[in-house]
């Protein structure tokens, strides 16, 4: 059994672009849903029913399976006050826990700092994708970002250096060029340290795909590839505790139906593959996956799609998650809407706090900037 905070692992799957709450967890028997979604409403016979009020999007089969097994929590009406309904601003708010000012420190960065205060393991937090999400940025906290696990490392793309032997020799040379030498000054020393950390991280990560074997065949989609890399790193037992990736774009202003369909085929399948993989390795007890998006979408559709909203939905999936509904589905009644959008009733920082305290064993207040109501999904 995993020791909370020592071995427990968090996977964050960010749905970028504002996933449509109403068509993901569908109030399919509510007449207001039908009235407001004349064009993009999901037909009742296509919905995957959870109960006689709510159901999942038709392409969320693999996710529903996890729900049926009691391993999935749905956090309803999540958000924060006065949503600016701007992607960038809202995503920044989710990343920095600063709804009222521009923040530059990421909450995951703080988590990594608190999990590994002396930065012993450069793989404590790993992002899979290009660049680094602001959520993971915190000055002084080393974080690894991998765009492709198979080719991660220094000097991995030099056209002339293709042979294994030469590559190894050049890397050895590189490592010597990055040996800290006395009297070169703090910046050079810092560069040496950073370079060596990367080499260490790359060496460690290299074994992840090498050690890995599985009968699960992940789909050939970007999100499935990233989740597979996450699985490989997790299963390789490298001490990585927060693994972050994203998929998008969920910004379905136009042509929502085919777009949202495809998005959930891909994400649903990838999640299914991932948890099957963990199951096969009997490694599902130490990991939970959280899914979030920057806000939900407008209640009334705009003809072919939906525009930016406010209140949204988040999920947490894992063997140790107490499945079920948490918080409340916001009312669709016109008098209860905010500018035509679902009113959020649960602060996202409570969501983070729950995960940070109950799954990672850390004090959430300095990480999310205050005390927020936690839920019992862990």
């Amino acid at each position, binding site marked *: 059994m995993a020791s909370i905070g020592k071995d427990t692992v968090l996977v964050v799957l960010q749905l970028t672009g504002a996933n449509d709450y109403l068509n993901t967890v569908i109030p399919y028997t509510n007449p207001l849903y039908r009235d407001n979604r004349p064009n993009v409403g999901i037909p009742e016979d296509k919905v995957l029913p959870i109960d006689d009020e709510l159901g999942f999007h038709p392409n969320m089969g693999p996710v529903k399976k996890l729900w049926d097994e009691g391993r999935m929590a749905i956090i309803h009406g999540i958000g924060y006050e006065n949503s600016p309904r701007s992607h*960038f601003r809202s995503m*920044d708010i989710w990343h920095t826990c600063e709804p009222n000012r*521009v923040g530059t420190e990421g909450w995951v960065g703080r988590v990594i700092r608190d999990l590994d205060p002396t930065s012993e393991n450069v793989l404590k937090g790993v*992002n899979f994708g290009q660049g*680094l999400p602001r959520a993971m940025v915190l000055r002084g906290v080393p974080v690894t970002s991998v765009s492709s696990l198979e080719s991660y490392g220094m000097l991995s793309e030099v056209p002339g250096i293709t042979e294994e032997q030469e590559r190894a020799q050049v890397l050895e040379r590189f490592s010597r060029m990055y040996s800290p030498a006395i009297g070169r000054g703090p910046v*050079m020393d810092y560069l040496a340290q950073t370079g060596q950390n990367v080499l260490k991280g790359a060496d460690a990560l290299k074994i992840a795909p090498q050690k890995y074997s599985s009968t699960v065949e992940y789909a050939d989609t970007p999100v499935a590839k990233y989740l597979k890399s996450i699985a490989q790193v997790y299963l390789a037992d490298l001490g990585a505790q927060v693994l972050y990736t994203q998929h998008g774009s969920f910004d379905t202003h136009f042509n929502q139906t085919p777009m949202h369909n495809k998005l959930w085929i891909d994400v649903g399948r990838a999640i299914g593959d991932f948890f099957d993989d963990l199951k096969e390795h009997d490694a599902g007890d130490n990991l939970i996956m959280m899914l979030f998006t920057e806000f939900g979408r407008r209640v009334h559709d705009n003809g072919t799609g939906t525009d930016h909203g406010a209140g949204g939905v988040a999920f947490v999936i894992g063997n140790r998650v107490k499945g079920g509904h948490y918080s409340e589905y916001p009312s669709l009644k016109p008098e209860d809407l905010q500018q035509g959008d679902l009113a959020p009733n649960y602060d996202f920082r409570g969501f983070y706090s729950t995960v940070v305290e109950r799954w990672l064993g850390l004090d959430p207040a300095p990480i999310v900037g205050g005390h927020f109501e936690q839920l019992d999904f862990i």
Partner: protein
Amino acid sequence: MPGRDDMALMAHLMRRAGFGASREELEARVAKGYEATVEELLHPETQPEVDVNILYRYFPNLEGPLAPVQAQTNWVYRMINTRSPLQEKMCLFWHQLFATGNSKIDNPPEVLQQIAMFRRHGLGRFPELLVELAKNPAMIYWLDNNGNHKGAINENWGRELLELFSMGVGNYSEDDIKEASRAFTGWTIGQKIPRNPLGRFYWSFEYRPEDHDDGEKVFLGHRGRFNGDDIVNIVVQQPATARFLARHLYNFFVADEVQVPSWNITPPKDPQAIQTLVRAYNESNYDIRAVLRALLLSDFFKNARFARVKSPAELVISTVRLAGNFGPPRPGYQELAFECAYQGQELLNPPSVESWHTGQEWIDGGALVRRVNFAAKLLGDTTLPGIRTIVNQLKDRGNLSPAEFVDQCLDLIGPIQVSEDTRAELQAQAEEGGELRWGTKRQASASEHRVGVMLALIAASRDYQFA
């Protein structure tokens, strides 16, 4: 034949005042002379402008209100193709200082308009630039001056003007901020055209006299019915402004200082250098060109070799220029803009009005991997035009000993300087292959390969992170 020292100095100038220069360009500039080159750099109007007709023929959507998020691509193209590199470097400088982020503006072409304004006014007088900035629609929206009303002020612009854009913390009072904010009431933007259905349109500055508080104000000890321009005129006269601007220019062009938030408690690295720049600022009636002239001609500048960590934009653009595989319109410019973002500098979108943290703080594990891999991938590719040129120049020098091989590579790639430890490793690498020969086809092919590897190692070195 230009002397080694002259070439090294010119390379240093072109790295700092531009994005580096090829051997050919360096030789021409050395022939022209250092002072004459500085004058040319200070006068972009004497050089042909980037030919945007060619650019838009290939990329019709790269400018204008309907430009998509690829406004960054537009700027990257200009930085690579400019014949007035100092002008583009000043755009980067002002963008760093007056950091305005698309995350809030949500209108990349409009942010690009601000850069265009820096291109026009960035080498002129500081008060003119500040007034243009105060009227810039993106800046007004960014710092909420459109919410700054007579009788109900919003202090955001007033505060940042004093704190970040001119005087620096500790040189004014909260009351000064309030009075400055009052003076800028009425400086707003016209009604924006909604984004749907036709796309993003440019915004416009609007002055609303009925919303302007024209009452008497007391600002930095001066009393009067000040409007925004009056505030600017008072601000630019302040000794604190001269010192703050000088220190920013020093940090960008001479050597990395500590981070800006510590400037009010940490003295400058070279107080005399700051004094020199302050003097030029005051004696020229606050003319940026004059300050830059004093800077670029100074000994403290000439001697500050490799004293700055390259920003991602500098690293990407200068490496690409060296490799010579970009110039005319072609696919891939957008990816260069993304690369800057992945390395930590998303052009047109600094993380906040306090801007990017520069110097050592450009580097973290993630950024270092990308910087090394990006540069090594280009400089190690002997099929690229700029690298082919280097290979041929090496060939022309005949058979080279390992020491000469390393020496010549460092010379042709910059010239750049590296530390003894780096040189020792490069030398060890060269010795593995022995003499560099070109006599037979096989030798030439092997040598070409060795050149690629050597250049990749130089690109990967710690030293290459500096300019």
